[in-house]
């Protein structure tokens, strides 16, 4: 089936199998491998992206469901080579180690800060509970989001 979607500002039309997950489409067809796959039960959040202004786990959607959608992935967050404040925040506060969860964490944080520009420690932890990080113990991720909130 044919789907057209706008990803990071560019329009893509592709033929996909109807069972293709959005995350597979991004990774395999559009070569946007910054979005990661960490599970097969929609539990880890590594695949989190923004679809029509909402952070979603891209392994829970079929590509064909996203015909006409406006999508932002981690690759589209920095503009003109300048890192987004959340990306800066993760670097400033050492909010990542292996980096595998990081794209999903950053996109989920993006959603949180859109809705709540000044979240508390508890609000950040609650908002990110759908995203596993096995490396950091989360403390520095919380600080990274706070840094981004203060520097946006």
């Amino acid at each position, binding site marked *: 089936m044919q789907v057209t979607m706008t990803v990071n500002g560019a329009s893509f039309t592709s033929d996909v199998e109807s069972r293709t997950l959005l995350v597979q489409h991004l990774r395999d067809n559009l070569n946007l491998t910054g979005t990661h796959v960490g599970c097969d039960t929609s539990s880890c959040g590594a695949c989190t992206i923004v679809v029509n202004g909402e952070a979603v786990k891209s392994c829970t959607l079929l590509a064909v469901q996203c015909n006409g959608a406006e999508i932002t992935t981690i*690759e589209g967050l920095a503009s003109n080579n300048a890192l987004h404040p959340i990306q800066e925040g*993760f670097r*400033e506060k050492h909010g990542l180690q292996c980096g595998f969860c990081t794209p999903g964490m950053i996109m989920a944080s993006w959603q949180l800060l859109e809705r709540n520009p000044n979240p508390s420690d508890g609000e950040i932890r609650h908002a990110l509970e759908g*995203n596993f990080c096995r490396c950091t113990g989360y403390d520095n991720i*919380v600080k990274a989001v706070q840094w981004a909130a203060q520097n946006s």
Partner: protein
Amino acid sequence: MGKLIGESVKRVEDRRFTTGTGQYTDDIVLPRMTHAHIVRSHLAHARIRSVNTAAAKSADGVVTVLTGEDFKDIGGVPCGWQVDFKDGTTMHEPKHPILVADKVRHVGDAVAVVIAETKGQARDAAELVEVDYEELPVVTDATEALKAGAPQVHDDLPNNMVFDWELGDQGATDTGIANAHHVTKLEIRNQRLVPNAIEPRSYIGDYDAARDFYTLYTSSQNPHVIRLLMCAFVLELPEHKVRVVSRDVGGGFGSKIYHYTEEALVIWASKQIGRPIKWTAERSESFVTDAHGRDHNTTAEMGFDDAGKITALRVRTDANLGAYLSTFSTCIPTYLHGTLLQGQYTTPAIHISLNAVFTNTTAVDAYRGAGRPEATYLIERLMDTAAAEMNIDPAELRKRNFIPPFDGVNQPGYQTQVALQYDSGNYIAAMEKALETIGYQDLRREQEEARKQGRYLGIGFSSYIEACGIAPSAVVGSLGARAGLFESANIRVQPTGKVSVYTGSHSHGQGHETTFAQLVADNLGIPMENVEIVHGDTEQIPFGMGTYGSRSLAVGGSAISRSLDKVKEKGAKIAAHLLEASVDDLDFADGKWTVRGTDKSKAFDEVSLAAYVPHNFPEGMEPGIEFNSFYDPANFTYPFGTHIAVVEVDPDTGTVTLQRFVAVDDVGNIINPMIVDGQIQGGVAQGVGQALLESANYDESGQFSTGTYMDYAMPRADDLPSIEVSQNVTPCPHNPLGVKGCGEAGTIGATPAVVNAAIDALRPLGVTDLEMPLSPPRVWSAIQQASA
């Protein structure tokens, strides 16, 4: 040029990881690449009657289907460490077949592989492979597997024994326990865990017929070790025609050390089909095929005299190694567990006897801490339990038993009862700092007050020690390791004064590109951006042993340090030549060589250029500046610390809430404090995970009942408080950097502190022991039982 060592320099690698431009193995796409899907056993133990691949072979897009029959002439994956029986009998070592032909021995055992044009086609066709099984009885628990009449995992290896093993002085220990004023005894189940790096394992095999050359892209912690095992033991490939590449890796925690059968599978099959093959685990596959961790059944007894001094420690352990022996599996319960039973204490007699056992479960191997968490857990649980039984404050009991401070220079190292010699330690200092940080006296008062209001606060301790910087080759060789455990580093100074460093260490989150660059730039007095750290490619780096056992800085960093010395020595010779001075008259500082007492100098980049434009070099001086070093440590390093956990338990629901966690660690000298703090925090989170949430479980039929993230609970952001970390510094006396390693400390220390805290909270209700993980139902039942 500022000083870089000791600074919290922001990480070099973060630019790519925060922008989605890292390159993990599954991100790699090769021309004409095919995809593999593995048919795995859904049964824990069954004889294979037949495998029918006809339908799968003719399915859409299928390139080939292979079964155990195709691998009959290949021996399978060996273990990397030989631990023989007490009586000298050779360890029982069945090779792990790449695909099994005779019988499956655990859920997830690999029976066939389908290779197809797309991932979807491979998965679809795998559904069509028919395997006819004859079910066999199952055993999943190590102690059960030792009983007479238990099902046999390997038909030719009696009693499911891998080996039996002991360490320490049994006679002295028995006497010490028999004559003790007080004996504390615990039955401990150190439950099985799944490491769960968030990046699933992923491999691409690529055979180039034109060059007769093999390339394996792999999510591995040690590419050269994988290459060596594959070439020398499994596939007998020519080592000089095999390249193993492991660049960005999404976490390891031990689980990506080992040579896995799928690595050999994709490379061997790639030659058969003449095309690259990619295999990436699905998470449900990771759960049953990544090596698991822990899984010890232990009885531990500790004797005390009437002054509260430990008289002896006796340990009996059955260690579950699963159905096959993973690369390091045999050394974990022995040389990384039994040898750590001295802890931080002056215990005069220690004995451990241990059975290593086959069961119908996934292989067990090192998981962050690897043996040391199990040792620490039993010692530290015994200490808090004994303190309560003898009515001594748990901090006080530890202080009475600590080995006194020793720096390993003015005072000798501490010889333990269990083979090791500690390098340096100041255990009391870490304890005092932890007590002060947490505000111990006030906290005890707060606990009293809370109890009056029916609230149950608990305070738990853990004073751990670990052996890191793995490892002195001569020592591990005598203990059965089939490899040396040195590390390598090659430093190539480029003509423009830029520096490339090729390290045998491997970063999968540790931040070597930053820490190592700090070390090199600081030493050479050049900007960090002039230094590139290269790792993870056997075609680029010298033969290296990779990263595990908190060894990168202590061993790999020391190798870099050695090469830096050689670079500076050669640089000085060239500078002396250029300055027409004697080497002895030169000082090296701020990136330049200066003739002492003059303003005549040559900068690092001038010397570098001269090294490659040697127009007037004196006779005998070689051009170029490039030096390789292999560093083999003199001893392990011994990081240590005290962790204190504060929990509140809700007696109505059994919920344990971690309120505070203070970790005071001593990992020797520190190059990047930000990275060390991050390692400790992440480690603590995993240790807390074991205490409160995580458990890998098999049911009676050997089904893995915790095989998804919905069933296997790992810490999420809102499960944890902010973890309060700080460090003392007792330098390691035997490596050039004075560093000890920080990767596993958090995990080793954290678990017993949390469990001790929960038991401390519930002592007024009569609870004296709890089994991990401290799930609300389990804690609630313990409260009910205690009050019944």
